């Protein structure tokens, strides 16, 4: 074998390890599943929207509207009286529809009198994720078609109506129903935008803290082993719980500081995209003081859970290089809920998706602001409870590992002794 061949063979042997391939395989799987979800959404968007129609006008131009809707949408409710709005909404909601469209009784006469014809749209909003608003885009498209068709008819009839009315003959009067609340004058898209501007910061802060502080914990454990300081530390008169909690708290402080520096720049950047505060306040789409405190508690509990998980992973780290590999699963667990909370709504996820997202403790502070705005306290408190249980169990496991040979040798002792040390943790006995 040539010298080059010899070196290539050695390099391949060193580089072809599970640690090299597993992260890439996971990323590929995630992209694959995301692609599948997007295809599903595109398929859904391509299907005719499910709507209801109330035509109070029944004259030439309102019939143009009616024809467009009947031809291009799946109309599950049809009426001529605005008294049926409530019943219509109920029917559409049962049929998983997106909107009830009411054509005003003066629709045609307003347009011929050079006023915009009113189309009232009652939106039934399912979720507040960016991808959830795709379902309303089908109806938005039909409204553009309606405008075009009415304009065409007005032009053909050689009318002397004002050009601006001819070009845009209708105006929307929108009301959106979402999670038991009524938002007059708002479309689902504007609600999604408002909520995004309110809840985008928390997921990004959480993700940054977890990745930064988590990396610090894992690296700290790896360096203790690599620099051979861990053996000395373990022989000092200090409780294992003190070592574990000391490392977690120090990393949390550093993580907060790093995230704070990052967020100063990020918040200025996001200000450019946020909605006006007065509009958000008008619709009560803001967190109150109590909400902020609850989100803070959720953040704190989740951070402890995240760092405990990182400590657990850190016990597997042999050196700095292996620590870098071990930060990958934590990074992924932080990124997945961040993207889900930005693009989708927990309520509109399939059951398996809900279980998956709920099981990741990092998801909860990311989803908490939106849930609190809509008064879903049960969801937020159950998330805090779950994260707290996750943190406690993980810390117990880490302390147990610190009490076994695994921390130094990479393998635990017999099962009997392992059980004995867990019992001793509860008894407060040190080893």
């Amino acid at each position: 074998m040539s010298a080059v061949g010899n070196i290539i063979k050695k390099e391949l042997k060193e580089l072809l390890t599970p640690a090299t391939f597993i992260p890439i395989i996971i990323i590929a799987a995630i992209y694959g599943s995301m692609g599948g979800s997007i295809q599903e959404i595109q398929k859904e968007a391509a299907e005719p929207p499910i709507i209801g129609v109330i035509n109070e006008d029944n004259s030439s131009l309102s019939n143009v509207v009616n024809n467009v809707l009947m031809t291009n949408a799946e109309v599950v409710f049809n009426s001529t009286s605005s008294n049926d709005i409530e019943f219509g909404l109920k029917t559409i909601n049962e049929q998983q529809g997106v909107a009830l469209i009411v054509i005003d009784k003066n629709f045609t006469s307003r347009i011929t009198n050079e006023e915009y014809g009113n189309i009232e749209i009652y939106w039934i909003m399912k979720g507040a994720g960016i991808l959830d608003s795709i379902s309303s885009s089908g109806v938005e498209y039909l409204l553009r078609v309606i405008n075009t068709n009415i304009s065409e008819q007005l032009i053909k009839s050689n009318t002397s109506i004002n050009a601006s009315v001819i070009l845009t003959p209708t105006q929307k009067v929108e009301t959106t129903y979402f999670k038991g609340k009524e938002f007059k004058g708002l479309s689902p898209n504007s609600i999604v935008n408002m909520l995004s501007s309110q809840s985008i910061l928390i997921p990004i802060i959480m993700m940054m803290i977890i990745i930064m502080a988590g990396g610090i914990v894992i690296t700290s454990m790896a360096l203790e082993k690599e620099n051979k300081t861990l053996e000395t530390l373990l022989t000092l008169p200090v409780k294992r719980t003190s070592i574990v909690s000391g490392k977690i708290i120090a990393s949390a402080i550093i993580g907060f500081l790093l995230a704070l520096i990052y967020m100063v720049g990020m918040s200025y950047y996001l200000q450019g995209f946020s909605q006006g505060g007065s509009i958000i306040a008008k619709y009560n789409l803001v967190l109150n003081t109590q909400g902020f405190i609850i989100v803070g508690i959720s953040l704190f509990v989740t951070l402890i859970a995240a760092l405990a998980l990182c400590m657990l992973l850190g016990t597997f780290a042999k050196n700095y290089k292996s620590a870098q590999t071990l930060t990958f699963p934590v990074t992924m667990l932080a990124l997945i809920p961040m993207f889900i909370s930005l693009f989708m709504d927990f309520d509109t996820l399939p059951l398996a998706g809900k279980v998956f997202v709920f099981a990741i403790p990092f998801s909860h502070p990311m989803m908490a602001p939106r849930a609190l705005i809509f008064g879903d306290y049960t969801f937020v408190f159950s998330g805090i409870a779950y994260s707290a249980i996750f943190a406690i169990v993980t810390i117990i496991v880490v302390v147990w590992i610190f009490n076994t040979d695994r921390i130094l040798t990479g393998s635990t002792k017999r099962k009997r002794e392992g059980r004995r040390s867990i019992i001793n943790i509860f008894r407060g006995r040190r080893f």
Partner: protein
Amino acid sequence: MAAIEVKNLVKKYGTIDAVKDVSFTVNNGEIFGLIGPNGAGKTTVLRIISTILRITSGSVKVLDYDLYKNAGEIRKMISYLPEDAGAYKNLKGREYLEFIARFFNNGKKTQEMVEKGVLIANLGDRINDRVDTYSKGMMRRLLVGRALMIEPKLAILDEPTSGLDVINAQEIRKIIKNTTEAGTTILLSSHNMLEVELLCDRIALIAEGKIVETGRPKDLMGKYNARNIEEVFTRVVK
């Protein structure tokens, strides 16, 4: 009261028997050496006595405390210097000594302990430099200072002069010898037979996880009609 009593100690790593039925006693105030080649089980025995590895079977008493039941008490009285140990590289030498001292004392007593460590390490002004600028010899001296500044009742030193040049090794041997005069018992491991002859009051020869001979260096040399411990070891193992 013996400083260490080891009875029928067995330690397994999975299917590997690292220590096989080892028994020995270390008396108070003596320097006891565990002597053997690499992989003989010396470090495992020292780690067990230092409370960081668990035993598979047998019993170990340190300063009259049961190793399993009273590990916390034992840690207050012992000091362990692992082979090739390091210190926190972002700390200065003095800061590292302060970090360790704070586990044993508070306030003025901490400073007294640190000053003792500075004296033992004998690094001059370099004690105020970052640890990552130290040579191997300086690092070892800092760590010996760290191990002995707390005035432990038992100091467990794993290859204390490993990898050091003659001058540094001699310095450290001198420090170890002086420490026993203050009442500290020393358990050390080494594969340097000359060092053992010079330092230890008694030794145990260990090979393949078993203690094959115990006694005073001079007595063993007489028993095996050998000129040095190296010859004793070769004859015992054969």
